[in-house]
Every structure is written in structure tokens, then in C-alpha cells.
């Protein structure tokens, strides 16, 4: 299965985790850098690198006041939704009966509607 069509800025494990984590916040909320680092489990340097890429793409903003906070932008939320849609199509096409032995792993069973994989238990 090809991953073409998936936004390369998002399609990296760490950046995907960052985007999904920030997307779990309510609109208008932000997350401290240290809390984000704690949740993602990256070194500060790596987190900065990934945040820089996401920031350059306009997907996140960082604000430096008494604490440094990170937030998803509207463009970032829209990009994650597009990414989710493309990913869902890829997973759907991979699970077609025509290619049962493609060596492709089963889709994750427990899927929250807010997450990506459709058809729980498929």
C-alpha cells in the first residue's frame, strides 16, 4: 500500500503524535512545552525540531511568555483532518477482500471516532 497522498509534514511518528495530542485540546487551548514533551516522550531538542517543521508549515504556533506554550492552528487541525481522511481511504483499500494476503497488518480494533481507523473490529 502506498502512503502517497499523506501529508509528509504530518506523516512522521513524532509529528503525528504531536498533532494528535494537540488536537485533543479544546479550541483556544494550548499546552506547555514541558507537558507536551512529557506526553510525547521526546528530548527537548527533538521536540523543537519537529515543532519547527510543524510551525513552518503553519500547523502549530508556539508562544513564549512566562511559559512556552504550543497550540494547533486552524490550518493544522484542517491538515490533520485531511491526513485522517487519506489514511482512512488507504486502510479501507488495504482491507478489500481482493487482497486478503497482502501481508498487511490488521487494522487496530479499538477505534475512537475521533481517531482514524474506520470500522472497529474489521
Amino acid at each position, binding site marked *: *500500500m502506498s*502512503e502517497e497522498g*499523506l501529508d509528509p509534514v504530518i*506523516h*512522521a*511518528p*513524532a509529528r*503525528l*503524535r504531536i498533532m*494528535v*495530542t494537540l*488536537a*485533543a*485540546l*479544546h*479550541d*483556544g*487551548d*494550548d*499546552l*506547555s*512545552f*514541558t*507537558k*507536551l*514533551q*512529557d*506526553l510525547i516522550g521526546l*528530548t*527537548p*531538542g*527533538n521536540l*523543537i*525540531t*519537529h515543532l*519547527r517543521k510543524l510551525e513552518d508549515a503553519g500547523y502549530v504556533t*508556539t508562544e*513564549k511568555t*512566562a*511559559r*512556552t*506554550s504550543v*497550540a494547533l492552528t486552524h490550518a493544522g487541525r484542517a491538515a490533520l483532518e485531511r491526513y*485522517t481522511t487519506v*489514511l482512512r481511504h*488507504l*486502510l479501507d483499500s*488495504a482491507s478489500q477482500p481482493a487482497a486478503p494476503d497482502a501481508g*498487511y*497488518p*490488521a*487494522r*487496530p480494533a*479499538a*477505534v*475512537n471516532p*475521533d*481517531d*482514524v*481507523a474506520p470500522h472497529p473490529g474489521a
Partner: protein
Amino acid sequence: MNEHAGMTGMDDASGTDDATPMAAAEAAVIMQQAGERARRQFRVSHRVTFTIWGLGLLLGYGAMWLTVRGQRPFHGPPPAAFAVVALLGAGSVMSGVAEARADSGVGGLSAIRRRIHFLGVLAGLGAMFALEGALVHAGASRPVVGVFEASAPVLVAGLFYFITSAVWLDWPVFGLGVWLVVVAAVGGFAGPAGVWGVDALAAGLAYLLMAAIEPRLRRS
């Protein structure tokens, strides 16, 4: 970024995973796990708050009722019994601290809303005591003041939950708000002594019920 000496401090950029190919299924798993973890971390549980207020009302109001029941004529609870006020105040502070801790790291609009709500409760309780003073000053009888001082905190709490549920569209909290307002409105008919007992049971047990079922409600 104060925590990391600026955005240029890349200590191990080789660890960034751009070059690592990621299958769609792997991405789906990452999204699922990261989403669940984030939601778990950001979820604010009201269980501690409900328990503290439930016990505060049940024990505090219950103690008040024990001190005033059978009074003829009604002369109100002894000043010492007003420890219940301190109890509710302490409960309010502890609740606020517990909730603030739950969403530590999260800033922005949610944090501002929570602080305003917290201040709203304190302002409501403060205004209630001022109004009680005004009633006494205006010559209200002790039984009238007794009904007011038992019912008003429950009314303040009920209205607080109304507002909270409107902001977060939290239907269980909305139900609690409705119930507390009804209890505050109706409990007074039990008289200046009986109102303490009615409110202790009706409001206190409602809080404890919410504390018991909240985890199940959040999961559903």
C-alpha cells in the same frame, strides 16, 4: 522557549524520524494511542469535587440540623456550628486545586473559563453572606434568615453547575444543577430547622451519587 533555551537548541536532530518509513497501519495505531493518552490526560474529573461537596453538605448540614431541630422558638444554629461555612469554603478550595492539577499544562481558554467559574462560586458565596447581613439589618426574623442561610449556598452551587454545563455541554452536571436549584427552592418549605436536614440529604446524596457514577458517565 524558556524551558529549552530557544528553538535553536537541537540536541539530537538525528533522532528525528523523517527518514523512518511509516506504514498507514502504524500511523493509525499511533493516532489511536496518542489520542487516547491525550484525552485521558486532559480529561478533568469532577469526582473529587463532588465527593468533597457531598460529604460537606451531608455532614455539615446534618450537623446544623442536629443543633437546630426542636428549637422552640427558633433561634438558629450556635455560632460554632458555622464551621460548616469553613467546611464548604475549604471544600471549594480543595476542589479548585484538584481540578487545576488535573489540567496542569493546559492553558488558554479552558484555563481561563475554569478560573472564572471558581471565582464565580466564591463571589456567589460571599454575596450570599452579605445579603444575609442585609436581611438581618432590614429586620428579617431569625427563622427567615435561617431558611436563607441554608438554602442560598445550595442555590449558588446549582446555578454554578447550570453555567458550567452550558459552557461544556455536560449533561450530567446540568442534571445536578437542576436538582440543586429545585432542592434550594423547595427545601425551605421544611422550615428553618428542617431545611438543613432536607438539604443535607437531597443535595449531599446527589453529589455523592454523581461522584459514584461520574467515571461511568465519562466512559459512555
